[in-house]
């Protein structure tokens, strides 16, 4: 390869909702390499979390991401309840059911949102408009149950914040019933459309071995034939008491990813219906007062994949360490194999196919001062650290 041309996408690009930067190295039409530059969305949430008390942190981690804004607080409270002795031992039955209902409703809203955006990326704006229109009834249900269209603030340590009122249940059931024919329509419109098939089949392939190598999670991994789902492998809420299937596809291309997400919508609707059938009476909050010292983890299957939170408590009212790993962190990196080898025109949909969520991902930032651009690797960081120690040591010697 003699001469590589670089095509920059971003940070502010009409393609993307969020600022992120892709550097596509192309040879003619073909993408030969890709650089992913993120860090535009870093807000220091892990550090802020260590300065808030245990009941404030759910509101903070909710604002990690607006699309999966139930998964993060849910994973956080699971981690804290892990310190207290496990979710099942602490949280009342009714709260477990309510958590699962909100979790699955969020999955419906997130998958419809992705479907719309994917339609927009391949120039199929009708799918965008339809998907977002039929997403609105779900947001109305959220508003009815939780009081807000997004950012539901339902999770708290030891239970949920709000109950589902008995008069809301028939309205929710009706909304779900009306959603089924809509998803049937999408299934027909997306899966049987020859143009969409031509655009999505065999594009952006991430095969099974690559999915394992790049630690893909969620629908991205399930589309590549990996049988992983936290809801089944490590049940939280009441996911193990319901009848549902893990959707798996073999191909690993974008069409398979779309198919997994559309079919998961049916499973989510099915799960919410079962939860509403079984919803027990009782309290919704265990009224936890103190968090003992210890450490705990929480894993939740967010719409994009496994969301992981780690919390360490030292007996005070604040977490002393809070580590977050969002699903997009792994999935975005898998673009490196999925997008390379395709054409530039397919790069847009390939980069979007993992349902990237950069505000979830960004937990560290590296700054570039002035024109002096520097990419630091591990050795550089170690060297910096050693230099700092050296400096402190010298200062100390001078004082002595």
């Amino acid at each position: 390869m003699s001469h590589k041309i670089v095509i920059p996408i971003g940070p502010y690009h009409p393609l993307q909702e969020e600022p992120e930067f892709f550097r596509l190295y192309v040879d003619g039409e073909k993408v030969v390499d890709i650089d992913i530059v993120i860090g535009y969305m870093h807000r220091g949430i892990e550090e802020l979390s260590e300065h808030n008390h245990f009941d404030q942190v759910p509101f903070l981690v909710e604002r990690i991401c607006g699309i999966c804004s139930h998964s993060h607080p849910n994973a956080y409270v699971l981690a804290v309840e892990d310190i207290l002795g496990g979710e099942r031992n602490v949280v009342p039955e009714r709260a477990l059911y309510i958590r699962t209902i909100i979790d699955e409703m969020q999955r419906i809203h997130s998958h419809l949102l992705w479907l719309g955006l994917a339609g927009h990326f391949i120039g199929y704006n009708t799918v965008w408009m339809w998907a977002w229109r039929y997403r609105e009834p779900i947001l109305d249900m959220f508003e009815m149950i939780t009081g807000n269209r997004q950012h539901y603030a339902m999770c708290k340590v030891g239970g949920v914040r709000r109950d589902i009122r008995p008069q809301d249940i028939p309205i929710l059931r009706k909304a779900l019933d009306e959603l089924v024919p809509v998803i049937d329509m999408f299934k027909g419109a997306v899966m049987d459309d020859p143009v969409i098939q031509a655009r999505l089949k065999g594009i952006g392939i991430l095969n099974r071995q690559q999915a394992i190598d790049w630690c893909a999670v969620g629908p991205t991994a399930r589309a590549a034939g990996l049988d992983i789902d936290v809801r089944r492998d490590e049940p939280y809420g009441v996911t193990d008491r319901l009848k549902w299937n893990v959707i798996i596809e073999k191909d690993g291309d974008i069409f398979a990813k779309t198919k997994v997400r559309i079919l998961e919508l049916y499973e989510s609707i099915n799960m919410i219906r079962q939860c509403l059938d079984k919803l027990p009476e009782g309290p919704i909050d265990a009224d936890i007062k103190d968090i003992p010292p210890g450490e705990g983890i929480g894993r939740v299957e967010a719409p994009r994949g496994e969301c992981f939170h780690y919390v360490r408590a030292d007996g005070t009212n604040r977490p002393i360490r809070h580590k977050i790993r969002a699903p997009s962190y792994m999935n975005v990196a898998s673009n490196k194999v999925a997008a390379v080898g395709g054409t530039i025109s397919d790069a847009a949909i390939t980069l979007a196919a993992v349902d990237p969520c950069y505000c979830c991902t960004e937990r560290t930032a590296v700054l570039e001062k002035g024109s002096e651009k520097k990419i630091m690797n591990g050795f550089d960081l170690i060297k910096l650290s050693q230099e700092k120690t050296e400096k402190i040591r010298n200062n100390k010697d001078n004082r002595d």
Partner: protein
Amino acid sequence: MNLKLRALTKSLWVFHAATSPCNNCDIEILDALTPRHDIERFGMVLAGSVRHADVLLVTGVPNYKTKERLKKLYSQAPKPCLVAAIGNCACGRIMFKDSYNSPCPVDEIVPVDVYISGCPPKPEAIIAGVVKLINKVTSSAKGT
């Protein structure tokens, strides 16, 4: 009211600049464009480039990296460029004001014309905010 201003307020082209938000405000902006709310009927279109835009919709709390980009975006926009700060983060940084990576609020970087609060503001609130923006522009033009 001169012709330029009249044309401007009849069809505002918006560009949304996400300066490290949580995505919700951006989703609600796009939501305002989709069939339920459909602000395109008022001539508002999401512009692909800031060079075509009349209104800069800023969401999120700027960090060190997006602060410079926001300045650059504002300098590239054709003037008069109106700026709307959407969401509580852009209006006042709420819970991120103590963060090590949030140097200053949006209105210290670019002049803000209208603040739309809410976390996230509903699409109705965004539409109401833009209507207020239009009224502000037209009434200030009448005053001069």
